[in-house]
């Protein structure tokens, strides 16, 4: 698909997202749309880390940090609620840099497990200390102040559609930042690191520094969503931000197809947000059916839905991500990455000229 077609589809989707809450009167469906978009955005942050070779399972923790920062500001200080947005991002980025400095020193495997450890600590800290209101959680977070439009009119945040538009605006901003980053020198350095850290180092890309950057940026992005979640739900409980949420984020990304940094998470989150709702019919067996479906999906098509649809022809974006879902029995584990990198570098040069 050429990039022009992609932009056309993106704009079409955006228009559809703007129009849908007006056409649908059911608050329940708008709520599902909000959850889907929020989950998809977090999965996009996950894919960002994955492009740099980081399997980061701590994102829900940073989501929680953003949400709790907002909650504390809204309930315990007199600052305007809007000011919580930048403050949440700054807090999450600061924490992620400290954590990243420690975790990124070990091997890939120790980073995975280390980030899982972070995912466990964060809700535990929120639940244990009275400062964060313990397991009862923060209650009564006021929605952000209305935005005056002049002549008495204002955008107020009260109904489900208004929150959906707030999330949509934040999401589009975050997505544009992601896109700009992917196209920048840093984004290409991340991709190089994901392809082959050794080769990337030979062209003077410092893995430690660039991975720290990707860790911080993705944490900041989920903190934006944390802000949204805090003002949207108005109640925060530690159990929402537990490690399972992080693993679910990973599922959204993998189900959609990790080779597709924007479309994949959107599709995956849509399926996995709506599926458990649809499965309520089976009652108590819902987790069993969901679990079985997850296994079937990941075992039969590790390249994700979009990866399956596009086959091996997905030339653009990140071809190596498609290669991640290689069929069993095929040669694996780095023995051909060198050749792939060469080929991809040439292909990228071609398109650039």
């Amino acid at each position, binding site marked *: 698909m050429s990039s022009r077609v992609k932009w056309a589809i993106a704009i079409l989707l955006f228009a559809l997202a703007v129009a849908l809450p007006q056409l649908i009167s059911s608050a329940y469906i708008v709520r599902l749309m909000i959850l889907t978009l929020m989950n998809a955005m977090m999965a996009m942050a996950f894919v960002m880390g994955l492009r740099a070779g980081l399997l980061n399972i701590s994102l829900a923790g940073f989501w929680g940090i953003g949400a709790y920062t907002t909650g504390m500001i809204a309930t315990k200080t007199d600052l305007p609620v809007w000011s919580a947005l930048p403050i949440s991002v700054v807090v999450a980025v600061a924490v992620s840099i400290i954590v990243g400095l420690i975790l990124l*020193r070990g091997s890939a495997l120790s980073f995975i497990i280390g980030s899982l450890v972070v995912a466990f600590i964060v809700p535990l800290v929120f639940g244990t200390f009275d400062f964060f209101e313990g397991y009862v959680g923060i209650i009564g977070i006021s929605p952000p102040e209305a935005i005056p439009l002049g002549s008495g009119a204002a955008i107020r945040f009260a109904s489900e559609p208004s929150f959906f538009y707030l999330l949509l605006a934040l999401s589009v901003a975050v997505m544009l930042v992601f896109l700009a980053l992917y196209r920048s020198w840093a984004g290409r350095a991340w991709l190089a690191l994901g392809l082959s850290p050794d080769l990337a180092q030979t062209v003077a890309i410092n893995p430690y520094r660039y991975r720290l950057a990707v860790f911080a940026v993705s944490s900041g992005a989920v903190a934006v969503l944390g802000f949204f979640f805090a003002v949207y739900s108005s109640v925060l409980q530690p159990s929402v931000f537990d490690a399972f949420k992080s693993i679910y984020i990973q599922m959204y990304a993998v189900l959609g197809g990790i080779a597709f940094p924007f479309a994949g998470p959107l599709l995956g989150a849509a399926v996995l947000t709506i599926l458990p709702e649809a499965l309520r019919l089976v009652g108590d067996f819902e987790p069993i059916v969901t679990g079985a479906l997850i296994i079937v999906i990941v075992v039969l098509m590790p390249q994700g839905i979009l990866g399956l649809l596009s086959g091996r022809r997905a030339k653009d974006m990140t071809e190596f991500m498609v290669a991640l879902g290689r069929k069993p029995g095929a040669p694996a584990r780095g023995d051909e990455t060198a050749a792939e990198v060469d080929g991809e570098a040439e292909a990228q040069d071609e398109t650039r000229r």
Partner: protein
Amino acid sequence: MGLVYSLMSAGFNLVLAAANIIFIAFGQFYMIGAFSVWYLETYAHAPYWAAVIVAAIATGILGAICYPIVFRRLQFTKQQFLTNIIAGVGLMLILGQAALLIFGTTSRGVPSPFSGTYEIGGVRIPQERLVVIILAVAVLLALNFFLQKTRPGRAMRAVSFSSDVASLQGVNADRMFMISMVIGCALAGFSGAIMAPLFGVDVTMGASGLLVMLVVTLGGIGSMPGGILGGILLGLMLSFGQYYVGGGEAQILFFALIFVVLIFRPQGLLGQKGQGGLPGQPGQ
């Protein structure tokens, strides 16, 4: 109690190092082990020893069923952690909910065959706890013997070092993954079985599988002695911390300890540099 964590982390380490699976559903096998002991003692009136052995074998068989169905196809792909974590979560959902449906939420006690206490140097130790300690140490020693001295054990270590090179030497890597999975799951079930008389049995036991991951991180990924040390440290910190500062704070202290250790030794307390990573991954 730490020794039981040691035992479980030995199993988790085995699956992680040999088969390269981050086995999230590990805690569920611990729970299943405990439940099978409870079931056998209450309904089949089996003697305690037989129940423990049957529980270990049953979880081992369950692991043997899970591996070919769930994990084999993911095994030789490039970013297998990405997919096998997810598969593990799926398995965890299934096993956890199945246990909930079958056994309900009530907590159950398992009668222990030992009731007396021993006095060693002025310290009073309940007999049942002593039995747990002896059993755990015995199994750890047996596991060590198996890995160091027997042929399949050596093959397993070779596979965990590099499955490609081991395959060149005529080791069936896939079968080794299978065996390590069976042993790992059996260890989890065994831990659950010997813990059942001490703490009772309920469906939330599966959550302790997550603590095992922390123990492994602390001790060093792929390092058996590290896992044992980490397990003992966790047990001590949780029981002393519960007494002095409270349960949640004790866990946070343990997390803080992990982070302090990771600052100075990124590979964990007793881990070796360059172990536990994949080729072409960071930190190699």
